[in-house]
């Protein structure tokens, strides 16, 4: 890696218009530092994949500029492609070939010398845990195995920047977590810059150093997950007393800690003016009033709250993938009372 | 099960099937164009075959091939209906039908009605093109009634065959299985010349192929010289009876499937 060609992504005023329909990408600016995991978050149709296609040279931008690994995506396409690896949406694999045959084709097309091809194939298949399934046709692979092979294929030429377009869509929790671990390892241990699109808040939150939220082709928020969440508000605590008659008393106590917020029918909630650290004080104050509690819940602001604040909609409502439903609940800690 | 529910189910299924046939070019064009095309290719391209020694069909080669193409379109009309049933199973429509229809026999009859309508549309086109291209008809009205009656029975038999396959496999993957046997039976018959001019293995196969009797009877009708009529109708009705059982078994299998 040289100073002239850092493993970074810089985009300015990137636009993509299609003949029919509105601007898919409407003037976005991006800065992704070398070694960073950047989460590009948005609902279906927000412009995530179009952005990735432009940054990976598969789609010329209508306007704007982008430098990937220091190369211009329009004028230096081949240089960009040498520096990047990509696993695009819908693991694009040939069901009639085996995992090893995919690797052999990919290593050959990338021009690896014949002896290196075999070693690299073995190494990567092992790394993604597919050595046992390597000689099975991909048609028999599970969704998670396909994604892992997809990742291995993206890594054959040791790229400095990795683009992952919705890498875990449709995967079960176990496969998702395994992929997250591998992506983290690539960034932390190998210094690979990762540009990851997702419609899962949890994924962006867990994996990304920084997050960009895209909606209708525009970036509506950008920053670290903590900063974004901090920007839009404080955590909420919700208390459900054992007896419904205690609700008023609970409300009085909670009133000392912040303004009222929406809660379940049996509960009372407030936004903690002093942040999460006040949770212990709240419990102590309620205990001092001898109010028996059924349930105490701390709800930290989630990226969905950020999305809501920036777009007026929840990500759940904006997207159409039912998988997303389970991911939008934010971070919730439940304390048995 | 009331008569009204039977007819209303049959009518609803037929309407839907005909509607999708008429509004979907992917269904309409092959079933309309292929018979016309075969007619042009056989009657036009091979007309000199009628000049081979001992070829004895005074009505002309165009009429000779018209009968083959008529029966072929009757059979393939039924096969295309089978494709429609398979697609209905793939997209879940048939599952809804099986759940909702008070009389499931009406479903099969509905598809058969659609197949007949489809065949009639094709035949009108075929007759118009044949007449324009100068086809002779030596048979009288009764003969022609016999010819088209035979074709109708063939259409019903093929529909029942294809429906039986479609309801067993319940996927368009079953398409070749519906199509290939029909194709084999049709082409292992005296397609280009009369049976007596065939030699070798094809003569042996064609002699026992029921399609041969259908073709010979049909050609007899159009020539005004009916032949093997009883054998042909018996063969056609026998196929209907056989494939009705086959289709009923398919319906049972579809009903029993998860």
């Amino acid at each position, binding site marked *: 890696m040289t100073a002239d060609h850092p493993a970074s992504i810089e985009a300015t005023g990137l636009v993509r218009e299609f003949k029919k329909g509105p601007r898919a990408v409407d003037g976005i600016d991006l800065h992704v530092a070398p070694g960073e995991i950047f989460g590009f978050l948005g609902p279906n149709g927000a412009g995530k994949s179009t952005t990735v296609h432009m940054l990976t040279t598969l789609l010329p931008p209508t306007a704007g500029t982008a430098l990937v690994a220091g190369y211009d995506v329009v004028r230096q*396409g081949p240089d960009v492609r040498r520096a990047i*690896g990509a696993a695009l949406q819908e693991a*694009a694999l040939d069901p009639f070939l085996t995992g090893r045959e995919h690797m052999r084709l990919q290593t050959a097309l990338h021009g690896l010398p014949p002896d290196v091809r075999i070693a690299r194939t073995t190494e990567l298949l092992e790394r993604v845990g597919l050595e046992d399934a390597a000689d099975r046709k991909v048609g028999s692979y599970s969704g998670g195995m396909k994604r892992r092979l997809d990742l291995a294929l993206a890594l054959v030429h040791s790229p400095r920047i990795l683009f992952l377009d919705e890498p875990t869509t449709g995967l079960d929790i176990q496969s998702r977590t395994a992929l997250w671990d591998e992506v983290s390892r690539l960034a932390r241990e190998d210094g690979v810059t990762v540009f990851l699109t997702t419609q899962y808040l949890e994924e962006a939150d867990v994996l990304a150093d920084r997050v960009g939220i895209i909606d209708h082709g525009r970036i509506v928020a950008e920053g670290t997950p903590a900063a974004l969440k901090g920007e839009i508000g404080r955590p909420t605590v919700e208390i459900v007393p054992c007896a419904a008659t205690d609700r008023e008393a609970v409300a009085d106590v909670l009133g000392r800690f912040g303004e009222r917020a929406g809660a379940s029918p049996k509960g009372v909630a407030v936004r903690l003016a002093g942040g999460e650290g006040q949770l212990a004080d709240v419990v102590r104050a309620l205990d001092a009033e001898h109010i028996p509690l059924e349930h105490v819940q701390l709800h930290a602001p989630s990226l969905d709250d950020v999305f809501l604040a920036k777009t007026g909609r929840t990500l759940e409502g904006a997207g159409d993938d039912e998988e997303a439903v389970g991911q939008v609940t934010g971070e919730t800690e439940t304390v048995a009372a | 099960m009331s008569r009204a529910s039977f007819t209303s189910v049959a009518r609803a299924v037929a309407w839907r099937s005909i509607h999708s046939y008429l509004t979907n070019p992917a269904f309409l064009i092959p079933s309309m164009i292929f018979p016309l095309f075969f007619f042009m290719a056989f009657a036009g391209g091979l007309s000199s*075959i009628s000049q081979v020694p001992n070829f004895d069909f005074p009505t002309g080669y165009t009429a000779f091939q018209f009968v083959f193409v008529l029966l072929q379109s009757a059979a393939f009309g039924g096969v295309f209906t089978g494709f429609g049933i398979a697609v209905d199973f793939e997209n879940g429509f048939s599952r809804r039908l099986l759940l909702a229809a008070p009389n499931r026999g009406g479903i099969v009859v509905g598809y058969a009605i659609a197949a007949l309508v489809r065949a009639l549309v094709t035949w009108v086109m075929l007759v118009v093109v044949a007449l324009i291209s100068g086809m002779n008809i030596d048979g009288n009205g009764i003969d022609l009634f016999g010819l088209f009656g035979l074709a109708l029975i063939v259409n019903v038999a093929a529909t029942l065959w294809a429906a039986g396959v479609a309801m067993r496999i319940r996927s368009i993957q079953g398409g070749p299985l519906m199509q290939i046997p029909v194709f084999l039976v049709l082409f292992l018959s005296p397609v*280009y010349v009369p049976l007596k001019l065939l030699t070798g293995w094809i003569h042996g196969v064609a002699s026992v192929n029921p399609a041969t009797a259908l073709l010979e009877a049909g050609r007899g009708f159009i020539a005004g010289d009916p032949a093997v009529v009883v054998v042909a109708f018996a063969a056609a009705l026998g196929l209907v009876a056989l494939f009705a059982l086959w289709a009923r078994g398919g319906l049972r299998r579809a009903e029993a499937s998860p």
Partner: protein
Amino acid sequence: MSSALGTQVGHLARRSVVRTFRQPAQVVPALIFPLFLLAVNSSGLSRATKLPGFPTSSYLTFALAVPFMQGALFSVMNAGTDLARDIETGFLNRLALTPLRGGALLAGLLAGTVVVALVQSAVYLLVGLAAGANLASGVGGALAIVALSLLITLGFGAIGLFAALRTGSGEAVQGLFPLFFVTLFLSSGSLPRNLIHTDWFREVATYNPVSYLIEGIRSLLVDGWNAQALELGFGIAAAIAVIAMLAASSALKTRMVRT
């Protein structure tokens, strides 16, 4: 061809062959269907050899040219639907992200198709000869038949690739099949042109390039070495191949718009 380009073509051709032979639905009909029609037509139309002026006493020999064309038609479908599937699944994008050259992609796919066609041609020829067809031009003629049928496959396969690249849809490529089938029927496939008595049909067959492809192969079976028929056959096949490959290359540039 540079070694890198050679490697790319070789690997893509290998993939094309492997995936074709792993799909019996692509291989079996292309072998069985033409041979079935050959069996039926050569028996059903054997009387046609009694027509005055018919060039041979064996209709099987006369008709043996047709399976090579039908096999080429299947190659349109197979090459086209395979590429269309690659477009639909995004596999083409994966390839586009490698240093793969566009020419290598087309060459690789076509090379794979040609290898499959080689097997098909050998089977048609061997089955035909075993069933009693003549080969007037001898062993050299057999090689010439295979060469011409591979050239035809190359051209037709490129048409399949062009259709896939333009439409990006396997269904659209499948829709071409009837169209090609029509061109095969409206040719001199069943009778020599001078024995087609229906004027419009003879006219269509005369202008139909497929007639000359069939006649080129047929001349080697029936006549021996007929320079004119071979020039026309090879010339037209080469012209179709060149035009189709240029069209496919241009369509690839539009489809694979990588910068």
